[in-house]
């Protein structure tokens, strides 16, 4: 049992491969989280426009990308775009897919956050002479983000976990590297180690979230 799942020799051999994978996973996360946040911010700001010409298409857009499994979106871009002459590679496809998919989720969260800031705040800020942009950037958004911080963090956790999808389009991130090592050694130890790395990386965030969620429900 130990020899199968926790084989020390194989761990030693696979370690550099897995470490390179971890580096790519971190790099990928550091790219897609800000991209998703940017997409979400754009959506949340557009949702401020009350015109039905903006609101209905926006709602359709968000529902569309929430209904689409992220892996389907990714495969769609990866397998479909080359047919119209666009070769974006794994990284480009992952970046676009995450921008669209996680942007929709971040957008919903930020919109709820902005809605939770009382209108008096923006009226007061405007009456002191701040412009609409300044009001949004310095008065509304900081309060909005604080109000929905647990949701933002929980979504970020999901996004980091989603980077494992990159393995399907041959991005050399942690899971991909682990599977390479596993097929070379005919031993599942590298996958077990990759799982341990994911756990070590994300456990603190999970613990923190679990506390925040419990506190929020008790206060509510």
């Amino acid at each position, binding site marked *: *049992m130990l020899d199968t799942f926790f084989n020390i020799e194989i761990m030693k051999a696979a370690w550099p491969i897995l470490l390179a994978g971890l580096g790519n996973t971190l790099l990928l996360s550091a790219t897609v989280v800000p991209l998703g946040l940017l997409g979400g911010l754009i959506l949340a700001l557009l949702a401020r426009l009350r015109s039905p010409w903006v609101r209905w298409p926006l709602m359709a857009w968000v529902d569309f990308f929430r*209904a689409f*499994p992220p892996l389907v979106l990714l495969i769609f871009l990866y397998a479909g775009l080359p047919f119209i002459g666009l070769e974006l590679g794994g990284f480009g496809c992952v970046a676009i897919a995450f921008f669209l998919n996680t942007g929709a989720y971040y957008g919903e969260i930020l919109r709820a956050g902005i809605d939770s800031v009382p209108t008096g705040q923006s009226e007061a800020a405007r009456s002191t002479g701040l412009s609409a942009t300044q009001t949004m950037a310095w008065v509304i958004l900081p309060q909005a983000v604080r109000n929905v911080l647990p949701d933002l963090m929980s979504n970020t956790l999901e996004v980091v976990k989603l980077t494992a999808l990159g393995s399907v389009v041959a991005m050399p991130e942690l*899971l991909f590297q682990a599977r390479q090592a596993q097929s070379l050694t005919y031993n599942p130890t590298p996958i077990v180690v990759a799982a341990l790395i994911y756990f070590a990386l994300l456990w603190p965030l999970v613990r923190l979230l679990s506390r925040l969620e419990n506190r929020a429900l008790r206060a509510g």
Partner: protein
Amino acid sequence: MSSWERFLDTFFNARVMAKYWPDILYGMWVTIELAVLVVITGIASGLLLALLRAAGIRPVNWLMIFVVDVLRALPPLVIIVLIYFGLPSVDIAPSGFVSTWAALALVLMAFSEEIFWSGITAVPRGQWEASRSTGLSFTQTLLFVVLPQALRMTIPPLTSRTIAITKGTALGSVVAVSEILGQASSAVSNSYNPSPLMLGAAAYLVLFIPVVVAGRWVETRFAWKK
């Protein structure tokens, strides 16, 4: 052929679509089967764990919290790969379908246990004390007084989490489950044409748009009023 016609011929090729739509339809059936199994087993086991946690046996609870944390921290695809490629080494060889089902059900179990438990602890203590003093036993109080109030609070978060995990059925394509994405991908490589992907995308929208819209309605309908 104009470029528009070429575009249509590439992405909406009627001949290719006519040939492969039965495959996609079969994939839809597999996706539905997988999703229903995951939702039922995942939520039922999550509820059982939350009730067990209410019994307050310390070592059991610590173990439960740890397992739930592990399942929340690992990407679902990693769990699927671990089951599908790892277990055969100890002579248990689950199929792709069983691996995907088990992995997603475990993840949903972990998340729903957390949600149910938060709901149970959010019911005011007075409710417990009042019903115990009327002569109800601990189990009766938990099942007939606390749980019904807790369940109502848990509906919005549980709905959105369940929808998110159900969409994970697409991950099954990685371990050769013939669900929508798997069927569409193999049709693309057989026909050298991306039209089956369009069909697959349409199949997902047909299945999940109603779910997302219904979820939105449920979240507003049962929103926790402060």
